[in-house]
């Protein structure tokens, strides 16, 4: 580990962990690779989580599992044993995340409507003063259920999870019996104005288990986003000023405004909400996003 990496470990707040394994018995096909508006579920969920954490996003996959294309920054870890349920993935993911940050948002891959505002609201549940504080898990309680696969965990819980697995206690509820859990109900979550605005129904926790769930979710309209173009992209198209379109990815947003990214040979990038800059067409968009297409050759 270099000097700067050691320093980074100290000032990162949170990583993301996405569990991509699981048997997908009811779906009949691996959920991670399900098509999602020109992308895949796993690509989308990792991208959304990545927008809300400052540490890396870690995917835990089953032994030998083939994954769809991901952002190259995503770290992939193998679950050493298949079929041992979410606790096994949680142990691997938290242990990997512990290298980078004191907290992690952990979720499954089957959350097509997960919003980064939800991830941020959950992580904020650790509150000021952490990591010295005493909350081990921030657990959303939505729709009458606890949501362990869309929750925040201290990454130093990994050894405890492993001990529980060794003892045959294979459910997240077993962990919650032993540690300090801060439960966030719907009202508490929606007290966050950004989340209340972006995901008022808390669809972030809506998972797809069966083909009919997936079809219904896929039939929903793509997110409503605003597109801006700058520089020659604005002057050449005669399209100054923002446009509203429905698009689940950067590539789709470009297409909706008649911008062919491939024609520009990698010289066009997109900034999402003035923050992260992306060049890959599959980078996910969320409702309320503003996408700014800019020249990759900025500078000079």
């Amino acid at each position, binding site marked *: 580990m270099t000097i700067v990496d050691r320093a980074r470990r100290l000032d990162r707040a949170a990583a993301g962990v996405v569990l991509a394994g699981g048997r997908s018995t009811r779906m009949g096909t691996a959920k991670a690779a399900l098509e999602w508006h020109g992308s895949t579920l796993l690509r989308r969920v990792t991208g959304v989580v990545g927008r809300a954490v400052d540490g890396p996003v870690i995917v835990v996959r089953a032994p030998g599992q083939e994954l769809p294309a991901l952002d190259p920054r995503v770290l992939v870890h193998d679950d050493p044993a298949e079929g041992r349920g979410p606790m096994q993935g949680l142990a691997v993911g938290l242990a990997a995340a512990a290298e980078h940050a004191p907290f992690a948002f952990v979720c499954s891959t089957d959350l097509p409507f997960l919003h980064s505002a939800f991830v941020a609201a959950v992580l904020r549940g650790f509150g000021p003063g952490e990591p010295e504080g005493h909350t081990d898990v921030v657990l959303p309680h939505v729709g009458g259920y606890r949501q362990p696969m869309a929750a925040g965990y201290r990454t130093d819980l990994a050894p405890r999870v492993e001990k529980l697995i060794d003892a045959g206690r294979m459910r997240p509820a077993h962990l919650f019996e032993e540690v300090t859990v801060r439960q966030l109900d719907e009202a508490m979550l929606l007290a966050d104005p950004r989340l209340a605005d972006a995901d008022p129904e808390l669809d972030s926790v809506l998972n797809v288990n069966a083909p009919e769930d997936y079809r219904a979710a896929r039939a929903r309209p793509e997110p409503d986003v605003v597109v801006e173009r700058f520089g020659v992209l604005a002057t050449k198209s005669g399209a100054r000023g923002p446009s509203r379109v429905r698009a689940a990815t950067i590539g789709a947003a470009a297409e909706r405004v008649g911008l062919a990214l491939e024609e520009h040979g990698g010289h066009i990038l997109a900034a999402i909400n003035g923050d*992260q800059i992306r060049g890959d067409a599959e980078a996910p968009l969320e409702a309320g996003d503003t996408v700014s297409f800019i020249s990759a050759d900025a*500078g000079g």
Partner: protein
Amino acid sequence: MTDSGHIPAPGGYFGKTLVVDVTDGSATTLELPERVLRDYLGGAGLGVWLMNELAPPGVDPMGPDAPLAFVFSPLVGTPLTTSAKFAVVAKSPLTGLLTDALASSHFAISGKLTGHDAIVVTGRAPAPSHLLIDTEGARLVDAAPESGMAASDAEESLRARYGRRWRAASIGPAGEHGVRYATISHDGRHAGRGGLGAVMGAKNIKALGVQGSARPALADQKAVLAAAKDLRSRSFGPATAKYRELGTLSNLLAFNAISTLPTRNFQAATFAEAPMLSAEGLAESRSVARNSCASCSIGCEHIYASKGGKKTRVEYENVFALGPMCGVSDPDQVLEASARCDALGIDTISAGGTIAWAMECVDRGLLDAPWLRFGDGAALLRVLAEIGSRTGVGELLAEGSRRAAERIGQGSAAFAPHVKGMEMPGYEPRTMQSMALGLAVNARGADHNRSGAYEADLKGGLDRAHGASEHVRAAIQTEDRAAVMDSMILCKFLRGVFTDPFAEWAQLLSKVTGWDVDGDELHETARRIVRAKRAFNVREGWTAADDWLPERFLDSPLELASGRTVTLPAARLRAMIDTYYAERGLDPQGRPLPQASATSATETE
């Protein structure tokens, strides 16, 4: 070896530097061994070698012993696009360290036609003079008629007096008055950063005139022509579209959208009135003409009409520095301020940064100039005039923000926007943390041309708001690429057309010089040049404390449009710098290790 005993120079070179002492006009020739040329190429690289050889340690940058070098390159005069460039290199009166500034114009071609790879000026002329150099040698002529003139007028006047075959690099009134960020200009192009105009002014030289007919042989003329044709056609592709269509000013709205447009002395990173100053907006509301530097097929220069039918050349950096940085949104006032900087011969970035700092001082009650307020375009024009003439508050501000803050005190150094004394370009370091490192460690000071680390922040592969070791490595790569491009010399706006830069540059160099140079050798050359700059600075009193950013940027949060709050913790910057030192092979205090010393003249015999 020729019959005369002279070893022929490699293709593209004469193998010699003319050194002129303007105290008495005497000139000597310094032979440049092939090893030195191969190790340092030309431009900024050869310039730093000359400084390490010729500048007496601890020399006063404005003193007669300080050398001022105009350095050409092996590519100057070839048909390769963007190659008509020259570097001006000296110890900076602004930073007290090395500065090298590049400009593109026919001056480069005519200067090389004098039969030299570089011209070095030392001494101090007894009266205001022009230095004229041709293949016959050097002579001093009276510059009294051009005294006080803008550089462009002085050029014209000199050519009217001595003939239009002369090309002249000149200073404006600011250089004559010793403004520490005065420029040297030719044909409306400026060797802008670091106060080279003040160095020239201190030598009592108003203009350096050059003309000649000496042409060095090229190793493979036919191959150079073919390469030039290929490069020219590639220069019309998507990698340069931005520069061709709207010029660098197209950065403004994009940077505003990503919270990296320094506003009101870096108190904000977005400027609500940015659309009024944008290239997109200006292109709609007023006439615009495009122009190219000599030997350039990109044509990035955009000249806008302003009030009274004036024409002003506009770049992102001058609009950022005189617009958002000073809170001024009226495009006519910003264009006029930019034109005034050109007429006075001062660096727009340092002018804007120093004035913005002064405006904040006024806001805080630290400086008694109540008229100098953010957003007041008339005040901006007034203070520029005062700086150029060193009158009123201009006497203080002509010193640059670091010295001015030292004089004013009261905590004003914390928000003086400089590194090593050089004012910062238009990139917010908290939202561009590769660039934060690049700005902190670069030899020239806060600089976007010797470290193009912003490229890494804007490519999307790294989290630009969270610097780490990969950001350090990316910053080093941009420094290395810049070191070669600035020494060969090729314009950086071409950088996007090269897919394997060092190997492709090596091929170009090989065709010109005849050397069997490859990409690896050229990469090592880049590292050598970067190291030599650092070695010069160490010799001139640089310490590790100089590789740092102003307090304003450290540990203070900045909120992005996304709602994310970004900070640049001092500990993170420290860690990035320490990693930079380690990756560069420097000692823990940032000094080059003894075994990595630069090529010396004695080693090359």
